């Protein structure tokens, strides 16, 4: 094998294998690139934009690596040879400068997009949002609809076109709520009440899961999100559920048994008796009991 064969191979291999992976993946369902809501769509655009911007550096690097290695191979005596050249101020300024320019552009994009996508900020919408409280347990998800007085286990029903404002906590190890089709994920932690606002723009069933290890049942902590066509459909679903008699209930006492570790993956729907159940779960682990928090926070936009 001639040395320049190796050069070409090293540069082509990542491209070929990458393309093969890409070709295979495009025959499969790729939720991050098939977003079903505005948050996910924004994030997909960000990925594509950043990738495009980085090609400004990546393509020259690959090209120069290949061309220089081939052109200045030691068997090519026709090429120029300057063994004592120490550098070139202008060239070096160029590649301090170009990345700085790219990063400057990207910084602006980052600043703006981070504020736009801040999970602590509810989505702007004329539609009244739906409130859902989420509790990550060992090892299932509890979704509480305080206004509808419903608690669901391992399945989340939402209306399409309506922003969903989540409050997320854990009653167990740190977990994370991730619905790739809808976008942003957030950690679920004891004593904390994380915020997240998502929206499904289309009807469908999307997979969500826990993305942070929480013990042996971790891999079973996935669930389906069912986006119903409209708010009316959702309301009638709620009404139908509430009209059905003899359902199981959930209040604080039952919760204490319910919250024990289990590998039970079944979907359940329960009547919520104790509307402040979520608050009680969070307060159980409250970090600070003096109500101390200074008011000078840069981070709050509300």
């Amino acid at each position, binding site marked *: 094998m001639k*040395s320049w064969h*190796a050069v070409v191979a*090293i540069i082509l*291999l*990542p491209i070929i*294998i*990458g393309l093969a992976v890409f070709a*295979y993946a495009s025959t*499969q*369902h*790729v939720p991050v690139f098939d977003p079903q809501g505005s948050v996910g769509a*924004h994030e997909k655009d960000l*990925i594509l934009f950043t*990738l495009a911007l*980085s090609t400004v550096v990546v393509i020259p*690097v690959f090209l*120069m690596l290949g061309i*220089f*290695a081939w052109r*200045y*191979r*030691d068997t090519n005596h026709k090429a120029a040879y300057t*063994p004592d*050249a120490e*550098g*070139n101020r202008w060239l*070096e300024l160029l*590649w*301090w400068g170009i*990345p700085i320019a790219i*990063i400057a552009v*990207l910084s602006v*994009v*980052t*600043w703006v997009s*981070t504020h736009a*996508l*801040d*999970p602590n900020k509810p989505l702007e919408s004329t539609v009244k949002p739906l409130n859902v409280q989420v509790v990550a347990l060992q090892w299932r998800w509890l979704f509480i609809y305080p206004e509808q007085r419903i608690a669901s286990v391992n399945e989340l029903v939402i209306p399409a076109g309506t922003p969903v404002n989540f409050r997320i906590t854990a009653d167990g190890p*740190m977990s*994370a709520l991730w619905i*790739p089709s809808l*976008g942003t*994920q957030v*950690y679920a*932690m*004891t004593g904390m009440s*994380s915020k997240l606002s998502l929206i499904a723009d289309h009807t469908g069933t999307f997979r969500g*899961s826990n*993305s*942070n*290890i929480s*013990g*042996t049942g971790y*891999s079973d902590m996935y669930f389906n999100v069912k986006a119903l066509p409209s708010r009316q459909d959702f309301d009638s679903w709620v009404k139908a559920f509430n009209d059905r008699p003899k359902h199981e209930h959930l209040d604080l006492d039952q919760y204490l048994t319910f919250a024990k570790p289990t590998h039970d993956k079944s979907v359940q729907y329960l009547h919520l008796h104790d509307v402040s159940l979520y608050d009680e779960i969070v307060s159980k682990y409250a*970090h600070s009991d003096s109500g101390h928090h200074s008011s000078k926070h*840069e*981070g*709050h*936009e509300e």
Partner: protein
Amino acid sequence: MFGRLTLDALPHDPVTIGGVAGGTVGLLIIIAAMTYFKKWGWLWREWLTSLDPKKIGVMYIVVAVIMLLRGLADVAMLRAQQAIFATSPNSPISPDLFQQVFSAHGTIMIFFVAMGVIFGLINLIVPLQIGARDVAFPLLNSISFWLFVAGMVLMNVSLGLGEFSAAGWLAYPPLSELAYSPGTGVDYWIWSLQIAGVGSLLSGVNFLITIFLMRRKGMTLMKMPIFVWSVVTSMVLVIFAFPILTATLAMLGLDRLLGMHFFTADMGGNPMMYVNLIWAWGHPEVYILVLPAFGVFSEIVPVFSRKKLFGYTSMVLALIAIMILSFTVWLHHFFTMGAGANVNAFFGIMTMVIAVPTGVKVFNWIFTMFRGRVSFQTPMLWFMAFVATFTIGGVTGVLMAVPGIDFVVHNSLFLVAHFHNMIIGGVLFGAFAAYAYWFPKFTGFRLHEGLGKVAFWCWLVGFLVAFLPLYALGFMGAVRRMDHYDASLGWQGLFIAAGVGVLIILLGVFFQVVQLAYSVWKRKELAVGPDPWGGRTLEWATSTPIAEYNFATLDAVHDRDAYWTVKKAHEKLSAQYYDIHVPNNSGYGALIGAAALGVGFALIWHIWWLAGVSMIALIALVISSTQRTDVEHVITAREVALTEKRLRGKRA
């Protein structure tokens, strides 16, 4: 009497029993062979008690290679599970075992492979490159090494006694607290890292002082080889980052040992503070590993391009910039923990800024080839592969530095692919390049080139096949650390590809072993002189094999490429020899390591009397080690002259 230690601590499941049995048999064979050939005395005198950094460096690398094999065996299990058994209900690997194995894999690869290789390399190369005869504190260096070994041993004891942590390589609480992990696993994790971490910290101090105070006359800071510069920045990170690890592990340990509430879910504990602190160490740690690898490439590219390094000053500035910036980005490991947009955006932008000096380094390496004479021996191939893969890792890194993007790929296999891209493509490829490059300096013969290239291609192809699919899997919604999933998700094809990639990597490792064995066998044919590549820096000015004292004379240095200029000007080294002081061997390192091992083991199993005895022994040993009187011996000028004649006379 034995605390929590009972017969129940012995392994139960067949996979672990097999692993332990295999390991024990291997160990017994080695012990038997050592005894049969009466090599224990030799081992103790020539290696275990040696304070010669060249030997300590080799020992670091031997330990790291053994641990690499274990880490690879772990990952073979993980990928087999995910590719073959993940969709079936009957797997030989239980979720608990799976979680222990990936926690062990990460811990071993970072702490006992990457750190071992880096410290081994530093021990071998730094004193030679700065033209010194030794490190600043030879005994401390040995103690550091033995603490590293003690941590390694402790971590591997968990295979046979008790269990290992199942909480991931960084053991986030509250999962790692007593409430959710009551066993000994997390304790093994804490104490093995605590012991090894203190060793790393002491090494950091040692090598900084060595570089600050023991450089050859004339070697100003801006004339140091760039590898030495990379070590300076890396060691500065060690001394400022590792204390955070020490404190954090201590606090988690106190939670578990004395029922404190730093990071527990209840009683006011704050698990987020642990995450914050562990990454304040963890992010610099990544650069601790990768900066020396940058240094290695900065040495190799000029030598194999037969040209000066392009933009030395830029390279140094870039290293310093990376060093400082690496302390300002740690939050990007937990963008999704709920901090406000200002905080997230700030740390995201700081993270991207690191891409600037890193990019500058890549361009400078590439332009070192420009108008050079590039020869493509294995070290150069590793460099080319490094640039190709590291660039991909860099792009995915910048992607995840944008909080909005991290929000949707965090903790997915995309993240796993990214950091393996940096650690394998950066650190490991750098280590392999260094291995091929410096091997002949220490042995007198080269590694077989053809087998090395076969191993290289296996590694490169295997790496790409193993990790590019993970990027796609991340986008498809696959989270990390998952031991089973539904077949309907369409993930299995890519998991199988990733598994095949691991097999190709294992083939690469196989060829590396064959290469080493074959090269040792054919060492006469592969024999080379002391300067086989046309080296530019001082290590190539020594004889091969290198004398215990490294350099017979300490001629002043005039230029950056100190040895290159000497060769070009046909300068003669001075032949006026003086007496040389060389440190005596010392068993304190091994003993202190053993005492630390005792403390760690006792604290894991709550054997209080042993903890007390070991602690007292440890303190007594440390005090007594400072009272040594027979610290060094003299090699007389006459002996030096004779040795030089013997070593130099052989030169081809």
